[in-house]
């Protein structure tokens, strides 16, 4: 059983935190992961900084651009993940854009990611059709879970296709937006309920616009948990001590 699968079997109200590798400082990747585990987070999602992150809003654009200025590259990220994996059994998701995979070489990328201890991948601009045709076998053979996104505009047939193609969990995008926009969650509750009623194969995590305890709790009513990204990135630089910032942020969500 994969780490992701066993997590969903034994836990509810799963908190998955996203952060950009190498932000604010190159070495912070490992530090942040360790602190998140200490704080009681269930899963971590590590972003590979990209020059042109189309699905991301200003906060993650900013963290990505700083990380790139810090000299972050894929091999460094892989070695940092290897270090993280030595001390933790938390599921690790790697998020990035399709051009990064293509340039690295898709096969090499999947093998390397799996070897370092990555459990799942989120590639928002990889169309599911191309994935099924070209990559699914390789990804699954490498032991990785590919996670697809559904949105309020996704029709039922396509939700089923994306659910069938995903392993680990299905990423439910809360509203039509790039990352980091906080919309009023109550407007999305009918949509969350509709998805829940579909009784899909995968457990659900809700993301985009989850920023605090209130939105996290709402998400947990309809799904197995939620993903927080931009709000956490902002919190990283809130006070002078990054460790304290992380602990406080997670505590505020969990309490």
């Amino acid at each position, binding site marked *: 059983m994969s780490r992701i699968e066993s997590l969903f079997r034994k836990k509810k109200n799963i908190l998955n935190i996203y952060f950009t590798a190498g932000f604010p400082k190159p070495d912070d990747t490992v530090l942040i992961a360790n602190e998140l585990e200490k704080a009681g987070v269930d899963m971590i999602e590590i972003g590979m900084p*990209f*020059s*042109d992150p*189309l*699905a991301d*809003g200003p906060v993650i*654009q900013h963290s990505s*651009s700083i990380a*790139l200025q810090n000299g972050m*590259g*894929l091999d460094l990220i892989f070695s940092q993940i290897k270090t993280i994996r030595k001390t933790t059994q938390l599921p690790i998701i790697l998020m990035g*854009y*399709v*051009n*990064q*995979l*293509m*340039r*690295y070489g898709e096969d090499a990328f999947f093998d390397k990611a799996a070897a370092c201890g990555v459990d799942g991948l989120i590639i*928002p*601009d*990889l*169309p599911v*059709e*191309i994935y099924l045709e070209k990559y699914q076998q390789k990804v699954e053979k490498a032991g990785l879970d590919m996670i*697809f*996104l*559904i*949105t309020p*505009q*996704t*029709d039922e047939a*396509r939700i089923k296709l*994306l659910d069938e193609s995903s392993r680990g969990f299905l990423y439910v*995008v809360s509203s*039509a*937006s*790039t990352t980091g*926009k906080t919309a009023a969650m109550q407007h999305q509750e009918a949509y969350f309920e509709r998805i829940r009623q579909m009784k899909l194969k995968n457990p659900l995590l809700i993301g985009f616009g989850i920023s605090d305890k209130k939105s996290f709790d709402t998400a947990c009513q309809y799904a197995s948990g939620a993903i927080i990204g931009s709000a956490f990135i902002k919190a990283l630089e809130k006070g002078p001590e990054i460790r304290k910032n992380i602990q406080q942020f997670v505590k505020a969500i969990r309490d």
Partner: protein
Amino acid sequence: MNYQPDKRGFYGKFGGAFIPELLYPNVEFLRKNYLKIITSASFQQEFKSLLRDYAGRPTPLYFATRLSEKYHTQIFLKREDLNHTGAHKINNTIGQILLAQRMGKKRIIAETGAGQHGVATATVSALMGLQCVVYMGEVDMERQAPNVARMKMLGAEVRPARSGSRTLKDATNEAIRDWINHPEDTYYLIGSVVGPHPYPDMVARFQSVISEEMKIQLKEKTGRDEPDKIIACVGGGSNAAGAFYHYLENKKVELIAVEAYGKGVDSGQTAATTKIGSEGVIHGSKTLLMQNEEGQITEPYSLSAGLDYPGIGPLHAHLFKSGRGRFLGATDEEALQAAFEITRLEGIIPALESAHALAVLPKIKLKSNEVVVINISGRGDKDLQAYTKYLEEVEKKHLNIGR
């Protein structure tokens, strides 16, 4: 060899739709319906009448006597600069605004580099009474200030793109993000043969009026409906796609695409995508683009804002890889010289983009009985600042130019 995209938008191995799921419903709707809509009789009738009565088509095919003498060949200029709003961009914006209208969209967004596409989009939005937001790199807003003023007068909101190199690539990112955030009411009116399928094909079809007219006009003027060479500049590549379109399958016609070499191919300040680029995905399309070893897209450079883009459309990547297209380039300096040359020989001030196409004339072998068509994609009013500065520098050095 086939130069039309397959059902999923691939020209050979280039193209497709590499988009976030959030854009899927919109792009999929377009993919399924664009051909049906744009080839319908009512659409074509409205499109053609606006091209004629509003844009001023057909644009002339002008035999450039003095330029031909200088290069000992027969040069015709396809005068896209004489279109309403001053460039070929209006052909595409008329087509897409009619499509947006039929889809019931209320809000139009666009990206722009030189501002010509932004102006053309603001123009048709005003014509149709639709709200218009244009994203433009901050650097471009400064160097193409007259076009910013025109867009504002036309009632469009111009939003500066402040990330990256603050040019066309970044403006396109911002426009795509806007579309992600407004999937229901907004139509994204892309200005070049770039972006996810079906945009490259759709834009090429709307621009194909250029070569459609060219065939008729050449027949009248030369007795043959095909030239020996067609030369056009390529940023994303919409004017080149339109000028090449009806000759793609006709191997007798040499298709010459001219990229912006900026300060030189190896200077680190260039937009020479086919020279220093490699395969990857930019703005939803698999194509050739400028990137580093890590797959990070690198910042392009050209004095010409319309060519300052780190990729080319997938059709052009296919033309390059298959050898069907011949890809050349011109530096800033060569383009400036060419702009003055044609201005002083023919009395035509071209856009800096179009000047790149003219600048390869001294670099290619031309025969006296050959027919060469150069696509003058736009006029140079917007570039007067750059031209004036160049003239002052040249005069300081007491050099003689353009003769």
